[in-house]
């Protein structure tokens, strides 16, 4: 890197970029020491200002080091807001990160790891961050209280779409999306372990060491980039060394163990059934670019035991104007000073109801920061000597002053004290979140005035340390060790002998104190969703007293931080209103995820075409060479038609394919149809049970059409089944139902008739199959089929099937079946010959002017022949509706036979599938049109049925359709209207036989 000075804060980042490690811009709030590398400078851009931080900084610590206090505007009132915490619980400091398509809104500055060249911007304002036009909302705040939307936007109704909705949409949301596709990639991963340790603070490190030393496979996951948790933020000692040093030693020991996987930057976000955990690893978010690697990995962790060591989150005390930039949590202020060597202010005051808050005053004072006051509502002795600080026991902070940042605090007893940072501590809430993801409900513990995990924990999970309410360091170390020992012992491991880590039990005494009643200014509870003490009181006044109602009425805890710093405070205020205790008032429980997980991570690689991969038929590459247009059918991509030069409309191609097939010969890939190989002594009996029609008497070498019902009597699927041998059948299913039918057949075989000697294999992928249709199909096949096989009409009549060889010995199956209504065959070869086969067939057909046809021509020809397909078999159609009621055998048991006998399904005026043609032959029919008698108003009452399939018939020269209409089969020649209210057409149609072409089937048998 070259040395290039940064002249002024207005320099662009690009100029500053490549700025050397030796060039420093002064960071007014930077202290000495800490866990940042003071020897290297990192340049970053915040709202267009170039600033500097150090490796080890977060964006938040670097902003504070530079004296930046105003970092965003609040959600509803657009109040100026600053950094409030030092972790993932941050409600205020949400920023937009990066530029262009990489832009990511609502990232917490407190968890963003600083890198050289980082670009961040504040969000949720119009104009500038310093002068936000929407801050006018704050002036109308008395109208915008809880329930405002419910009360205001109710009337007049006409205003909703044109006025209210655009208004709300315009001001809703925090950050902006880039609007471009996410250029990063995401991945998914799966890991297995004996013991998962969640959190690498004192309890977590101690637990991982105990489990690792016992030889168990351990995963230790922590959301931070530096393991150690509060050990890095405190001045407390472990085993005679600093907490941070002890953590570093523990991490080094764990890293040396083959059986331990240490995952930093990894948030365990959810607990799922049977010991499965979800975790998000942020692999490249701390780097300028992902460099082609997955940006984040969504892990699924399969565990036998888990120890939750998620620590605790500090909670604030509510008082007037407690959202002013500079008001922060006391533990965070201490963490910035101790870990990041940053003081959030030059003159710091502390407001605490517990002993822990005093350590902030002591630590900052020890680092030479001026502490102006310690205010403690408890009427007891001061907990420490803080040189130069006004100690106010039994007092409280009632308000704050300063426009866009704190300048003074107002005391409840009167008077003001100067401070540009106020460190507030209302006590610590154990991070019980993951214990609630199954059915667990936290329990209230009076001595720490906080919820701790209940007894009903997820299977295999135990809780240690601060997450379990053991708030002192010594207790956390011991707790982690004990829980891990129990876990590995229950798995049969022998815990190793070693001396547990020792630390002093620091004081954590607390007297509950939730909010300062004095003062008229608004006191904030949920900073991210702008919920005040007054809103909670209003919810109580209006009857929304249950926790769940409170939440929804005020939106308390519903922001991206899920109320990590707000929920218990909100509950406490509601408890005051109701006069009940906090546990009587309710409990807040949590759902996954613990902290936000990007949608991109859930999607992983399943994006775009990979969201639902296509299956390709063996002739796909050949079809591509022919310029085919493809269509998705089921899981497959099939050729829809094959345009030829000069054809500008799909109908030209499709009409030609139909005409050439009916005129000579055409070939269609039908590989996608499901194929099930059915073998066994009872194969025939099995088919009798799953099809409505009989198969036992089907001769070897013959094929038969079969219709399958569901047990409720509705058509499930249809297809042909060929009997290749005495105990060997091959069934075909429709393309889309192949999987479902196979599952159903296995159900019948295993669950209903377990003693039938029959076995099933899905061979859909095993065979490439082509329909060869048209008057010249036999002539074409004769050139392919080996001469020893006689395929003359006499030797191989309609519905015959045989195992043959083609092209000089290639095994094949030949079926004389027809979907097109022409003389036709289907020829199947093992899939690996599929590509060669289509080329051989096309070459052999050249002299007959053979044409490949796609699914559209296939559809036209089946409609011309009146064959039902997917459009007809909707799951609401019975055999009777299809005109196949008589096929349901009364002589044998089969799936669906009994419930087919229900009177409703055998009504005289039931729907029947018939054909339709327009009275005016020049009109086009539309599928989905409903049949209405002539002269009647189109309504539910007059509706007689609907059109299912339509096509232009090249043979007839006009539009034709299939559909269901009441008593259809008795109404040949009737005229009704086909009314399509969506397409706005209403045309007269005549009811006709569905067999439009060759109704006697003569062409099939020649």
């Amino acid at each position, binding site marked *: 890197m070259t040395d290039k000075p940064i002249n002024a804060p207005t320099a662009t980042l690009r100029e500053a970029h490549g700025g050397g490690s030796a060039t420093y811009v002064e960071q007014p709030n930077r202290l000495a020491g800490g866990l940042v590398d003071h020897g290297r400078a990192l340049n970053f851009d915040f709202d267009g200002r170039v600033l500097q931080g150090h490796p080890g900084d977060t964006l938040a610590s670097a902003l504070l080091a530079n004296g930046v206090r105003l970092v965003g505007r609040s959600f509803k009132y657009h109040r100026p807001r600053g950094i409030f915490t030092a972790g993932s619980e941050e409600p205020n400091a949400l920023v937009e990160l990066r530029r262009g398509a990489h832009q990511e809104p609502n990232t917490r500055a407190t968890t963003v790891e600083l890198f050289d060249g980082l670009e961040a911007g504040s969000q949720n304002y119009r104009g500038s961050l310093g002068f936000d036009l929407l801050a006018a909302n704050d002036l109308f705040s008395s109208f915008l209280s809880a329930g405002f939307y419910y009360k205001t936007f109710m009337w007049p109704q006409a205003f909703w779409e044109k006025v209210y909705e655009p208004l709300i949409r315009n001001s809703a949301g925090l950050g902006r999306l880039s609007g471009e596709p996410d250029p990063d990639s995401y991945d998914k991963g799966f890991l297995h372990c004996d013991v998962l340790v969640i959190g690498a603070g004192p309890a977590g490190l101690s637990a991982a060491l105990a489990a690792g030393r016992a030889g168990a496979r351990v995963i230790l996951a922590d959301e931070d980039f530096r393991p150690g948790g509060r050990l890095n933020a405190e001045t407390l000692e472990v085993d005679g060394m600093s907490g941070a040093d002890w953590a570093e030693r523990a991490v080094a020991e764990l890293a040396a163990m083959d059986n331990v996987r240490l995952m930093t930057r990894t948030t365990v976000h959810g607990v799922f059934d049977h010991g*499965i955990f979800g975790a998000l690893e942020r692999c490249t978010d701390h780097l300028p670019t992902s460099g082609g690697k997955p940006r984040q990995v969504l892990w699924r962790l*399969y565990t036998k035991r888990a120890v939750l060591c998620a620590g605790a989150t500090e909670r604030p005390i509510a008082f007037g104007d407690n959202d002013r930039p500079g008001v922060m949590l006391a533990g965070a202020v201490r963490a910035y000073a101790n870990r990041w060597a940053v003081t959030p202010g030059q003159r710091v005051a502390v407001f605490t109801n517990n002993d822990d808050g005093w350590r902030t005053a002591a630590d900052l004072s020890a680092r030479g920061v001026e502490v102006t006051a310690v205010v403690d509502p408890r009427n007891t002795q001061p907990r420490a000597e803080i040189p130069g600080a006004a100690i106010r026991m039994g007092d409280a902070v009632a308000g704050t002053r300063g426009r866009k940042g704190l300048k003074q605090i107002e005391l409840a007893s009167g008077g003001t004290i100067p401070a540009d940072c106020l460190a507030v501590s209302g006590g610590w809430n154990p991070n019980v979140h993951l214990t609630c993801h199954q059915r667990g409900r936290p329990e209230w513990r009076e001595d720490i005035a906080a919820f701790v995990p209940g007894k009903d924990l997820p299977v295999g999970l135990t809780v240690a340390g601060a997450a379990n309410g053991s708030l002192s360091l010594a207790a956390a170390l011991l707790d982690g060790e004990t829980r891990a020992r129990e876990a590995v012992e229950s798995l049969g491991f022998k815990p190793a002998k070693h001396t547990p880590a020792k630390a002093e039990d620091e004081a954590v005494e607390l007297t509950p104190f939730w909010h300062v009643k004095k003062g008229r200014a608004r006191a904030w509870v949920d900073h991210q969703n702008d919920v005040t003490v007054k809103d909670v009181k209003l919810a109580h006044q209006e009857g929304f007293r249950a926790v769940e109602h409170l939440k929804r009425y005020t939106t308390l805890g519903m922001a991206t931080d899920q109320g990590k710093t707000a929920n218990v405070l909100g509950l406490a205020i509601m408890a005051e209103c109701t006069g009940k205790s906090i546990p009587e008032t309710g409990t807040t429980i949590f759902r996954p995820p613990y902290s936000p997980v990007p949608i991109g991570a859930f999607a992983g690689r399943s994006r775009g075409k990979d969201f639902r991969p296509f299956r390709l038929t063996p002739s796909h590459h050949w079809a591509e060479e022919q310029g085919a247009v493809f269509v998705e059918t089921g899981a497959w991509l099939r050729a829809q038609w094959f345009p030829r030069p000069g054809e500008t409309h799909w109908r030209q191609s499709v009409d030609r394919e139909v005409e050439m097939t009916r005129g000579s010969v055409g070939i269609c890939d039908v590989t996608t149809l499901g194929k099930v190989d059915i073998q066994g002594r009872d194969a025939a009996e099995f088919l009798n049970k799953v099809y409505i029609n009989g198969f036992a008497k089907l001769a070897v070498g013959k094929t038969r059409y079969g219709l399958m019902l569901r047990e409720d009597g509705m058509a499930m699927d249809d297809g042909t089944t060929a009997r290749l041998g005495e105990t060997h059948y091959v069934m075909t299913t429709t393309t889309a139902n192949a999987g479902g039918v196979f599952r159903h057949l*296995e159900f019948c075989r*295993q669950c209903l008739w*377990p003693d039938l000697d029959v076995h099933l294999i899905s061979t859909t992928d095993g065979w490439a199959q082509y329909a060869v249709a048209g008057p010249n199909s036999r002539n074409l096949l004769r050139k392919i089929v080996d001469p020893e096989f006689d395929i003359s009409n006499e030797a191989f009549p309609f519905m015959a099937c045989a195992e043959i060889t083609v092209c000089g010995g290639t095994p094949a199956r030949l079926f004389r079946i027809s979907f097109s209504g022409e003389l036709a065959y289907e020829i199947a070869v093992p899939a690996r010959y599929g590509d060669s086969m289509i080329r051989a067939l096309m070459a052999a057909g050249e002299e007959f002017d053979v044409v490949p046809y796609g699914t559209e021509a296939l559809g036209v020809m089946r409609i011309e022949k009146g064959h039902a397909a997917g459009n007809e078999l909707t799951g609401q159609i019975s055999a009777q509706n299809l005109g196949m009621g008589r096929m349901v055998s009364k002589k044998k048991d089969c799936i669906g036979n009994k419930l087919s006998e229900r009177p409703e399904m055998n009504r005289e005026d039931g729907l029947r599938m018939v054909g339709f043609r327009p009275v005016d032959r020049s009109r086009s029919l539309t599928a989905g049109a409903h049949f209405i008698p002539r002269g009647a108003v189109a309504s539910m009452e007059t509706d007689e049925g609907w059109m299912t399939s339509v096509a232009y018939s090249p043979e007839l020269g006009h539009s034709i359709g299939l559909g269901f209409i009441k008593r259809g089969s008795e109404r040949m020649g009737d005229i009704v209207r086909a009314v399509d209210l969506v397409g706005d057409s209403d045309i007269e149609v005549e009811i006709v036989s569905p067999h439009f072409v060759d109704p006697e089937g003569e062409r099939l048998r020649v």
Partner: protein
Amino acid sequence: MIINHPLLGPRDAAEFVYLGDASLIDRPDWEDPDAAEKYYEYLYLRDNPAGLHRELWFHEQGDRSWLVVTRNTLTHEITNVELARDVAKAQGRSR
């Protein structure tokens, strides 16, 4: 969820397809004089227990066994997994 397959050991539930109540095994006799009523009950009437539930799962991405899984609907705890074929035979189903 993890289903402990009787032949293949613990498998992720994502490999399976769920069908429903294991009572679907008890398909009534088609020649029973009350067959219509019995089929109606068989197909449409289900218990919806808060607690132990015997249900059918198909190992579609595996060995294609139908399994009867006993699962607690409140906790998702799985207490028993059997091959549906064995269950069907034990209940007297044959051919």
